[in-house]
Structures are given as structure tokens and as C-alpha cells.
């Protein structure tokens, strides 16, 4: 009998913890322009290599390289840059508003702006996104974005479209192709697949875009979503935003060690791409590819967007307790705004001056929207939603027991 060592439970750990740097060599990277762009009708099995590579367009000097470089004019990229600057300004302002107790809670998408903003510019008007709580860029990029309404939702005030029922950031906007956000992780991914199946059943040409973070891929609904999307060849894009962290938990604990999240799609027979999430051009190009694939009936695509959660998980979180303070600055894929800025300046379509002016303009736009929203109240002032409205919309028509409870509440208030 050979002597064996006692078994030992493997518990993955991030290389970096407070006080010592992260070794980012765990991330498989590829050079900008190095990866092929297959045809949109590619067989899923023929994308397996791309699930372990990294599709990148912008190199360190801000040049657009290779087959994934989208052939788009500078105006679209300028729009994308403005959208990212607006999203970042919005987050910064709302963070302050939360600290001022105008709202109970907030979540930034700092460092992840390119993914949602590029996606929003690529996607069609009738398509439906099934977002998580960290895709505010999808809303803010839209030309018809209603920032005032978003802030009213954050404040739960009298103009809150969610009528004060939802935690801040749990937006819903059917008309803007933005499905109601749920606190329960991963549930919306399988719903997005169902929406896409419905589009196919009705012979429509609309595509669903479902979103999930790296941590939530461990939920069962992620697996069911991949299975149903594959089985029914649903016109859906499954977006896994791998920002390396699920609150305090490094992505290795979600199952990222020695593999990729894109590899899950490949294993389920879904065409899968792994894309530089801080590269606006790659984000736009990959989304367009997956959209074209879905809309043409060639089936679903899984995209792992490799990025970094530069901010705290939420306003209730302090990342200095579990990761190095300088982590975002050392992340090898850099900052999405800086990278697109450099590219546009390289094209002669942007300048440092224009950047500063735009930044200020975006901050002013957010400040103005905030001011307008505050006319309708904040969480703690008197302009809230009526208490009686709490009983509405549980059902289509208010049943007898809720009518009675609403009356009990009114009587209890000494009305």
C-alpha cells in the first residue's frame, strides 16, 4: 500500500489581501487584435478557444487593432465616452447623496462603465435587457434616458415610478428595454432566456440580453439559463460580468480558478466569447456580433466580460477589509474611460480640454437632474408615497383581504 497524505480541503484565496498586492497573472490575457472574429453562424464548438482567450481591440497606446475593431465612426465613440462619463458622474453624485442620507443605499458601477454603455449603443430598441443592479449604464446611455426618474426611484419619493416599494437602484423601465431588477441573484438570467424563447415563438426578431455577475454564476438559475438557451436555441445574449469580486469573495470561490466563466457556455454548447470589459471598442463589437447571431436565428451567445469592480460593492461595504487598496489601479486592463479617451485623442477626435469640458457638463447635468428630483422629496422628507398605495399592485385587482387591511391601516392612523 503506497502511503498517501491525508486529504486536504482546497479553499481558494485571492493572491492580494489588505497590505499586499494582487498577482493578476491568474487572468488569461491576449494581445489586442490577436484573436480571430468568427462568422456569426459559427458552430458553438468552434468558439471553445475564444472562451479561454481574451478579445481585445485597443492596445496600450490606444490603437484599434485586429478583426474585432468595429468599423464605426468617431461620433459613436464620442457618444460612448460621454455616456461613460455621465454614468461615472451619476454614480459619484449619488454616492454623496447616500452619505447625506437622501437615500438609504446605493451601488456604483465604477470601472465597469464600458460594458453597459457599449451594449446600450449596440442593442436595438425592441430588445430587452434583464440586468443586475450594476448596469445603470444601460439606462444612462439611452438618448431618452430619464435621469430625474432614476433619482426619484433612488429617493423613493412621490415621483418614484416604483412607488417607493423597491430598494434604491432596483429600476424598471419596460419602455427602455430594462427589465425590473430583483434582489434575488441570477433569477433574471433564466427569465431573459424565456423572453427570448417568447420572441422566437411569436416569430419576432427581438433579442434578450441577460446579465449576471461572476459570483452569481454559482446560482442554479445560471445553469438552467445555459441549458434552456442551448436546448431551444433562444435568441439571447448571456452576459457574465466578471469583475473579480462578489462582495468580499474573490471570483475563485465562485468557481473561476483555473478556468473561465466563458468556458461554462462552451461546455453547454453555447458560442462563447471572453472579452476585455474595459475596452469600449471590444465591448461594442462583441455585443454587435452576438446580437447579429441571435437575431439571425443562429442561437445564443455567452460573453464573459473581464473587468474589475473598482468601487465598493455597495454603500454598505468597505473593500479595504478584504482586498488591497491599490487593486483597481494595478488591474492590467486599466480604466475604460481613460482607454477610450486615449483612442479618440489618437484619432484626433477628442482632446484633454474637450474631456474636461464634457466631464463638467455631465456633472452639471446630473446636478440639475438631482435638483429637479429633490423637488419631489427624498427618502426622509415628507414627500413620500401614500401608505395606502402599499396595497396596490399585489394583484391586478385588490382582493377583499387587502381592502380590509388597507382600511385597518387608515383607521390605525386615526384618520
Amino acid at each position: 500500500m503506497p502511503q498517501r497524505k491525508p486529504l486536504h480541503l482546497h479553499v481558494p484565496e485571492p493572491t492580494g489581501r489588505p497590505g499586499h498586492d494582487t498577482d493578476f497573472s491568474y487572468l488569461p490575457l491576449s494581445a489586442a487584435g490577436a484573436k480571430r472574429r468568427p462568422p456569426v453562424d459559427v458552430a458553438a464548438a468552434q468558439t471553445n478557444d475564444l472562451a479561454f482567450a481574451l478579445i481585445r481591440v485597443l492596445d496600450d497606446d490606444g490603437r484599434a487593432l485586429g478583426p474585432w475593431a468595429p468599423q464605426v465612426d468617431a461620433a459613436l465613440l464620442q457618444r460612448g465616452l460621454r455616456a461613460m462619463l455621465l454614468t461615472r458622474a451619476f454614480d459619484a453624485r449619488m454616492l454623496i447623496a447616500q452619505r447625506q442620507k437622501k437615500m438609504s443605499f446605493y451601488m456604483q458601477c465604477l470601472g465597469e462603465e464600458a460594458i453597459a454603455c457599449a451594449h446600450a449603443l449596440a442593442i436595438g430598441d425592441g430588445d430587452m435587457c434583464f440586468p443586475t443592479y450594476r448596469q445603470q449604464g444601460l439606462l444612462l446611455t439611452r438618448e431618452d434616458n430619464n435621469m430625474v426618474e432614476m433619482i426619484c426611484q433612488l429617493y423613493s419619493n412621490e415621483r418614484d415610478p416604483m412607488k417607493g416599494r423597491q430598494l434604491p437602484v432596483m429600476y424598471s423601465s419596460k419602455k427602455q428595454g430594462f427589465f425590473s431588477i430583483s434582489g434575488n441573484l441570477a433569477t433574471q438570467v433564466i427569465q431573459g432566456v424565456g423572453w427570448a424563447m417568447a420572441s422566437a415563438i411569436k416569430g419576432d426578431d427581438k433579442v434578450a440580453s441577460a446579465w449576471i455577475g461572476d459570483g452569481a454564476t454559482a446560482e442554479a438559475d445560471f445553469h438552467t439559463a445555459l441549458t434552456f438557451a442551448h436546448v431551444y436555441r433562444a435568441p439571447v445574449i448571456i452576459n457574465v460580468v466578471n469583475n473579480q469580486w462578489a462582495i468580499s469573495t474573490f471570483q475563485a470561490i465562485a468557481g473561476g480558478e483555473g478556468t473561465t466563466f466563458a468556458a461554462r457556455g462552451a461546455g453547454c454548447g453555447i458560442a462563447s466569447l471572453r472579452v476585455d470589459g474595459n475596452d469600449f471598442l471590444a465591448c461594442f463589437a462583441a455585443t454587435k456580433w452576438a446580437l447579429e447571431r441571435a437575431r439571425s436565428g443562429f442561437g445564443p451567445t455567452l460573453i464573459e466580460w473581464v473587468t474589475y469592480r473598482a468601487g465598493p460593492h455597495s454603500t454598505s461595504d468597505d473593500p479595504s477589509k478584504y482586498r488591497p487598496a491599490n487593486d483597481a489601479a494595478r488591474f492590467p486592463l486599466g480604466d475604460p474611460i481613460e482607454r477610450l479617451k486615449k483612442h479618440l485623442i489618437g484619432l484626433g477626435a477628442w482632446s484633454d480640454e474637450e474631456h474636461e469640458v464634457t466631464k463638467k457638463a455631465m456633472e452639471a447635468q446630473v446636478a440639475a437632474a438631482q435638483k429637479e428630483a429633490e423637488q419631489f422629496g427624498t427618502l426622509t422628507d415628507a414627500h413620500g408615497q401614500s401608505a395606502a398605495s402599499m396595497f396596490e399592485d399585489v394583484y391586478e385587482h385588490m382582493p377583499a383581504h387587502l381592502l380590509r387591511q388597507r382600511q385597518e391601516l387608515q383607521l390605525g392612523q386615526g384618520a
Partner: protein
Amino acid sequence: MRDTNSMNTAPMTMIQALRSAMDVMLTRDPNVVVYGQDVGYFGGVFRCTEGLQQKHGNQRVFDAPISEGGIVGTAVGMGAYGLRPVVEIQFADYVYPATDQIVSEAARLRYRSAGDFTCPLTIRMPCGGGIYGGQTHSQSPEAIFTQVCGLRTVMPSNPYDAKGLLIASIENNDPVIFLEPKRLYNGPFDGHHERPVVPWSKHPLGEVPEGYYTVPLDSARITRPGAAVTVIAYGTMVHVAEAAANESGVDAEIIDLRSLWPLDLDTLVTSVKKTGRCVIVHEATRTNGLGAELMSLVQEHCFYHLEAPIERVTGWDTPYPHAQEWSYFPGPARVGAALQRVMEA
């Protein structure tokens, strides 16, 4: 609630009545889709969807992977798109993987989005015991759903109601948990397992209109008028209670709840105020079962009319056993004894 042209009736089992309801709705509403495990080509392990795929095509009626969370989750998404999905969970005992989608999503979508998105879906699931189904083919999980705000929970006890309630559920814009007592699929069952099975063709409620009609939700039905005691029951227990009333000689008024929640409180309260006594009967386990809520409601609304403590006859607080089926199942003897007790109190 009937179309004038749908008065042609035919004898149907509950299986045929449910199938007819889905056929009628697949024909009437192009947004209705039917899917679940073994539901498509094969027509369902209980034959409830037999022939529907052949008639309506595989874009409307289709087989699904074995994934309850996936089945309900996709249905929520389809509802958001504008379809009206009717999905099946093969046994109510297997609904648990879908509870997150049912409780956190389907039930709350309208509320949390302030009506921006809605969830007009029907989730069918065979439930109940009395068939030697053991632990995972016999459960009655209705209390898990009646406790969830935003859901409607419905359970028929005969073919006529099964079809009318299923059509009403499919048409309803709220999510509906539609529980089907599989013990009643082929014939009424009063708990006398020692006697031969009676087919629905011998029962007046086995005569079912062939076309469109509905039985309204939130409405109970008095199946046996009586003056001495009110029995509140649903599903298989309606037939058990009828047998118990006949055999005990107690002039019980039997109410078939039909809609478990929201429910028809007026019918319950009117009856108990008249009889002054109340026995609640369900197959599900006792503690925190729906009976506890029914008991509370009767106590709250009928306290000054009650002549005796309210009784509950239910399954025991154990998993559903196999060999001890008839000691577990609340049969007519146990219900009859409860009727005697409340009359003597």
C-alpha cells in the same frame, strides 16, 4: 359565465376536463403556450396534455428539460414578453427547485415594478395522496403558496370545476398555482380505498361543457347544504367529507373552497354563523397548514356564533408514508369522528 354556443356537454374525467381547458385556451388565445416535462409529444405522464402538441404544434406545446426552476423562470420571462404560459410541474412534490422563481419573482413582479411588468402565468401541478405515492408523489404543499402575497392558489375537486377554474386561471393576469388532486383524476374518491373505484361518468360533475366557460376564482361552492356544522374542505377531502356526513348522520354543510387564497370568506362566514360549528379538513400536514389560517378567519369573524371549538382533521405532522397510507390519509372515519365531537361539544 358560459358562452351560449358551448352548452354541448360530454362526460369527462378530470384529466380530460383539464386537457379540454388547455385546448380551448390554446385555440382562443394565440399567446397561450403549454410546456413542461414530458408534456409535448408524449402528452404528459397523466395524459393531461395528450394530443395538444399534435393539434397546436411544437411552438405552442413542447417538452422541457427536467428543471423546475428553469420551467417557471422561462415562463416569467415569457409573461414579461406578453405570452400567457401554462406550465406543468410533474408532481407538486417537485416544485421546490422553482420556489425562488415563484415566490421571489412571479408573485412580486407586478408589485415591485408597479405594474410595469406582469406575470400572467399558470403553474399546474398534480398534488395529494391516497395513491401509495409515498413521500415524493403525495404531498399537498398549498400552504407554501397561500402564504405568498401576490399568488393565487386554486384546487378543483371535480371535472366541471377543473375545466372552468383552469380556464379562469389561465385568463387571470395574476400568477396562479393550480393544484390538481391526482387521486381525483379518474374518478371521485371518498377515502374508502377498500371499495372499487367509481368513474367520473357516474358523477353529475363529470358532465362538462365542450366549449369555453369559466368558474370564477375567489368563489367557494356549497356541495352539500346542511344546518348542524360547517365543513371547510377542498380537493379530495370534499368527497371524503361528503361520505363522512352521510355515514355519521350529521347534517353537515360542506364547502368546497376551490380558491384557497384569496378565498371566498363570505361563504365561510355565512355558513358558520348559521351552523355555529366548524370542521376544517385537509390532506396536508397540520402545523402551519392552510387549516390554521382558515381556523383563524372563522374565529375572528364568527366568534360570537361558535357553539364549539373549531376542529381540524388533517394529515399528521410527518412526511407522507408509503405502507401507512390509510393511517395517514384523513379518511371518512376520522372526519366523521370530528363531526360527532363538535356536535357533542
